[in-house]
Each structure stands twice: as structure tokens, then as C-alpha cells.
């Protein structure tokens, strides 16, 4: 199960497991983002390379207009995936306090 929606302050709340089966849902939502945005991963448990691809595609699109995604409350395991992928250098990432 994966859910994605806007929070009360305009941040994007992600929860559950972002695997390859959920990418269409995530991609559809991310395609509508047109400006700088914070993604709150406090309830996101898991992400695979399929999810990373969506984040990268969105970040590259936003960069064309000088905007960027910021990702907050990233758990240790997801943070490891970002680090192995080198995504910690192309995203502003804030770890979750655990």
C-alpha cells in the first residue's frame, strides 16, 4: 500500500511502500508538481529503484525552472538507499530522528 497526498502546509505526504507496482500512482501525482516542494517521508517505509527513478525524473524537470524537491523525515533504511545511489548529493535530504 502506498499513499501520496498534500499536507496542510502544502508539503507532500508519502506513506507505505513505494515499489514498482505503485509507480504509476506516484508518477501521476509528481507530474502535477510545478514548483519547489517538500516531501515528507515520515511514514514512508520503503522505496526501491523504481521509486528513485520517479524522484530523479521530477527533480530534473523542476531543475529546468530553478526549483527543487526537499525530502524530510527519511528513515535510516531509505537514507541508505539514497546514499548507495548517490542521491544524497542531488537531493536536499533531512533524516528522521529515530
Amino acid at each position, binding site marked *: *500500500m502506498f499513499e501520496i497526498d498534500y499536507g496542510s502546509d502544502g508539503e507532500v505526504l508519502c506513506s507505505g*511502500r513505494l*515499489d*514498482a*507496482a505503485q509507480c504509476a500512482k506516484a508518477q501521476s501525482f509528481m507530474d502535477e508538481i510545478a514548483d519547489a516542494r517538500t516531501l515528507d517521508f515520515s511514514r514512508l517505509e*520503503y522505496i*526501491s*529503484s*523504481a521509486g*528513485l*527513478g*520517479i524522484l*530523479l*525524473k521530477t*527533480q*530534473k524537470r523542476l*531543475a529546468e525552472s530553478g526549483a527543487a524537491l526537499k525530502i524530510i523525515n527519511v528513515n*535510516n*533504511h531509505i537514507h541508505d*538507499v539514497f546514499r*548507495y*545511489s*548517490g542521491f544524497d*548529493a*542531488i537531493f536536499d535530504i533531512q533524516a528522521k530522528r529515530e
Partner: protein
Amino acid sequence: MQRYFARNYDSLSAIYEFAEEILAQHDITEGVRFPVHLAMEELFTNMVKYNRDCDADIAVDVEVDDNRVRVVLTEFDVDEFDVSRPREVDTEASLQDRTPGGLGLYLLQNIVDKLEYEYEDRRSRVIFTKESGKQHV
């Protein structure tokens, strides 16, 4: 324990539940379960993505002994594709130079402790192990 899964992405949640049940029975920590699930997904989706002409189910076997998790994915009637061959990804490339895709097998090779590939009679087997972190006393 072995189970067969239909060759499509919708099988991922069932694969997760299948493995999670076994890992939980053995008190495998989240720090090991996460990379095991990730490795299983990267392998399974790779099989689905690159063997679209094949409709045979994929066999997934998960075993746990005292200090390691061993997973075997087997697919039938497919061409050879060695997922254990080293993949290079420039993880230091700038955002402009990064392209979506290609990360799956790279991640797989970096998160498991051992990765083996066998191919015989059009049968592909991928075996990976992940240390559970438990120590013998």
C-alpha cells in the same frame, strides 16, 4: 519455503507478505529485512521487465538459518542474463547527467552479501544471501 508468483508487478505485495512472514518467524531485524525485500523486488522486476515474452510463473524460495537469509528466484524458459555481472553506475554524476533507470541491479549488488547466477536448460536461477547479524554462541 517456495512459492510461485505471476510474472507482473502486482505480485510484489504478495512476495513481500510471503517473505515477511518467514523473516518475522525467525525474528530477523528490520535492518536485514529491508535489504532482503529490496533485493527481491529488484530481481523480480528485472525478470518481469526483460523477459516479456515469457509467461511462466517465477519461483521464489526464502530460507533462514542461524545467521543468514538465503533467497532463490527461478524463472523458466528464458534467455541467459547474468545479474551478478558487475554493473557500474556513476553515483557522483551531477543531476543533469543522471538518467532514470539502471540503478536496480547496482543497488542489488551493493546490499546483499553474496550473489550467484546459474543458467541451464533455459532455466535461470539467482541466489542471494544476506547475513542476519545473529551470532553463534
